[in-house]
């Protein structure tokens, strides 16, 4: 490429002409020691907590600890280029990140700088990374559903827009998968998605971005990455940075969902910072304010009142447990902050139950109000039935003879758990979910062999879309299941079952 030299020269000339010479007034300090992402600075006597400071190469830091004779600064960048004796200047501003539509579809670091090689982020607005959560009068109760596209969740622990629903479980139990499916399912809903990867392997994140791109979900998704090799201060602020971006959309009256993957790693990063700053360690060596660290983050998720535009920000924090230990410090903290949790268990996962949700202890405290009425009707007793089934199943393993009623309940349970299995990246529309669960709970699957449930569901939904689209549209429009619809549903199911099971008969012959 050949550049127009004179054009460039004219731009430079204009810039110099417009430059207003002013005496540069700044408050400075000197780096006493630096390492592990933090610096101890002498001077900066008037700096305020959380204020940005600048190191010689333009690296930004945050005043984190104000002490009698020194300031502890966390360095948001490569701390290896900062040296002892360097001049540090205070900027007099708080940390902010670019927000708005410019960040959608981008992969950014926690400071809002691009990592995807698509050029600078041309954002017109910025927003403070740390800001106050909306107060009581600025909110309204959660009332609209946020469809995850996952049957087990939408039926039993429904999530509403503005809710905070924790996804908790051991490693490799499909926590991230729930977040990803939720993002993919927002394709036609207008909900913008934010995925915050904290302390994860870069290769995992790269794979995930590729997956989202393939599914066409990157158009409305922003990914903030503070990988395992990034400096700890970046891992600590990443959730707040993502939150600021999602919050901006909320205050504009839009809907957003943000996935913090995961907050236990952020807590570990915060613990490291605090210990290096010599703050006193508390339980599990976490600092005393680690609860506040998470509560102030999650409180920022809200459903705003109509006067403020009625926007919402749904948070799906992820917490990793060790050996199923939910009574550890961080899990109990985050469980108590959020409006419910989805608990994933390794034994269910390896038994092929995916998502490996433990129905008994997964709850959604506010989502019920937001659930689609049709779903509420068909999935009403599902949670309790399944919990009862799990108990019964354990009992049945003793090998005792069972009466017919118990056997029937067991059979129904086997079929329901089979029906609730769902593959990765296969989110279902809520009406499809209603149809499946209706068939399951009303006994239409009792005749179908357990191993053919999956096949049955696929062909049934195909059948409805091909032949009974008007019924589907009716449920979608009304969001209700009234007697008329029940009657026609039963009719459709009878018709379909006849062909489906009949086919099996012919196959057997």
């Amino acid at each position, binding site marked *: *490429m*050949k*550049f127009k030299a004179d054009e460039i020269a004219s731009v430079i000339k204009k810039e110099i002409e417009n430059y207003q010479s002013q*005496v*540069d007034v700044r408050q*400075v300090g000197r780096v006493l020691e630096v390492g592990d992402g933090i610096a101890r600075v002498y001077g*900066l006597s008037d700096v305020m907590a959380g204020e940005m400071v600048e190191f010689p190469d333009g690296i930004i830091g945050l005043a984190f600890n104000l002490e009698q004779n020194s300031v502890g600064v966390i360095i948001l960048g490569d701390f290896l280029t900062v040296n002892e004796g360097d001049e540090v*200047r205070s900027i007099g501003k708080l940390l902010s990140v670019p927000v708005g539509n410019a960040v959608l579809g981008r992969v950014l670091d926690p400071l809002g700088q691009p990592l995807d090689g698509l050029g*600078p982020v041309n954002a017109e607005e910025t927003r403070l990374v740390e800001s106050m959560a909306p107060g009581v009068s600025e909110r309204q109760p959660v009332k609209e559903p946020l469809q995850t596209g996952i049957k087990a969740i939408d039926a039993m622990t429904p999530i509403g827009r503005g809710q905070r629903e924790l996804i908790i479980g051991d490693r490799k139990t499909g926590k991230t998968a729930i977040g990803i499916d939720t993002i993919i399912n927002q394709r036609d809903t207008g909900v913008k998605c934010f995925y915050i990867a904290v302390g994860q392997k870069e290769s995992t994140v790269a794979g995930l971005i590729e997956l989202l791109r393939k599914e066409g979900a990157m158009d409305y998704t922003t990914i903030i990455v503070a990988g395992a090799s990034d400096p700890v201060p970046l891992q600590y602020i990443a959730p707040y940075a993502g939150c600021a971006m999602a919050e901006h959309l909320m205050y504009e009256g839009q809907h957003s969902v943000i996935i913090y993957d995961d907050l236990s790693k952020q807590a570990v990063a915060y613990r490291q910072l605090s210990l290096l700053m010599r703050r006193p360690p508390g339980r599990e060596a976490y600092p005393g304010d680690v609860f506040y660290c998470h509560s102030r983050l999650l409180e920022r998720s809200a459903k705003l009142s109509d006067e403020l535009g009625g926007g919402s920000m749904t948070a799906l924090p992820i917490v990793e447990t060790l050996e199923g230990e939910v009574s550890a410090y961080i899990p109990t903290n985050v469980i108590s902050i959020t409006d419910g949790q989805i608990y994933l268990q390794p034994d269910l996962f390896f038994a092929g139950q995916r998502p490996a949700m433990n129905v008994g202890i997964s709850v959604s405290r506010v989502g019920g109000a937001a659930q689609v009425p049709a779903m509420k009707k068909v999935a009403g007793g599902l949670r309790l039935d399944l919990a009862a089934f799990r108990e019964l199943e354990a009992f049945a393993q003793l090998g005792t003879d069972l009466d017919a009623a118990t056997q029937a309940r067991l059979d129904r349970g086997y079929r329901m758990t089979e029906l609730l299995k769902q593959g990765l990246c296969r989110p279902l529309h809520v009406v499809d979910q209603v149809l499946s669960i209706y068939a399951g709970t009303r006994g239409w699957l009792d005749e179908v062999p357990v191993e053919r449930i999956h096949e049955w569901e696929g062909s049934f939904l195909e059948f409805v879309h091909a032949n009974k689209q008007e019924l589907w549209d009716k449920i979608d429009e009304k969001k209700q299941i009234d007697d008329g619809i029940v009657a026609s549903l039963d009719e459709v199911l009878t018709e379909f079952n006849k062909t489906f099971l009949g086919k099996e008969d012919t196959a057997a012959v």
Partner: protein
Amino acid sequence: MGDENKAQDAHYVAEREIDITVERIADVYAEAFLGAAKNADCVDDMLESFDSLVSDVLDRFPELEKILASALISTEEKEGILDRVLRAESSPMFLNFLKVLSRHGRLDCLRAIHRQTHDLYDEMMGRVNVELVTPVPIDDALADRVVDSIKAIIGGVPVVSRSVDPELIGGAVLKVGDMVYDGSVVTQLQNVRKQMINRSVNEIQSRRDRFRYKEGN
């Protein structure tokens, strides 16, 4: 050997004012020193003794400083040394001060205490240290004019120290405590550069063709 190293470190640290712990300890002793001197109404005498101790004794006989700072030598011995060396010339009060330091094992912080005492005294007297950095040596009249211009901001009697740094290219830099008033050419050039980058990034990104020939390469 280890203690000697430690003593040297403390010395070095005190000189380069970088150990926060030493700094904090020195603060306490400096305040006590000035308070006692003020009560006895002999601040200037005491300060003079202190200055002379640092410049005439410690600077000239670094061995003595090592001995005083060393933890290997007992308090009694140190007090004996101080008595024999300084009794004739120093006031009893100053000698007592040194003995207190010795008993508390803080003689290694002597230089830091000295500096803090001066800082504290300057503060008490409303004096403000101003450092004026220029690219070329300037005469007193010009320096006074520069300092006069910021007198209102600093709110005190300026005590000016001057230094020369050719890297500034032009202009001058005034340092008052933690504040830096930077009117140097080098900073202005850097600011122009930063501003240009910030402003042009969008333009270059959105209108790349403006800088390119239409017909291509």
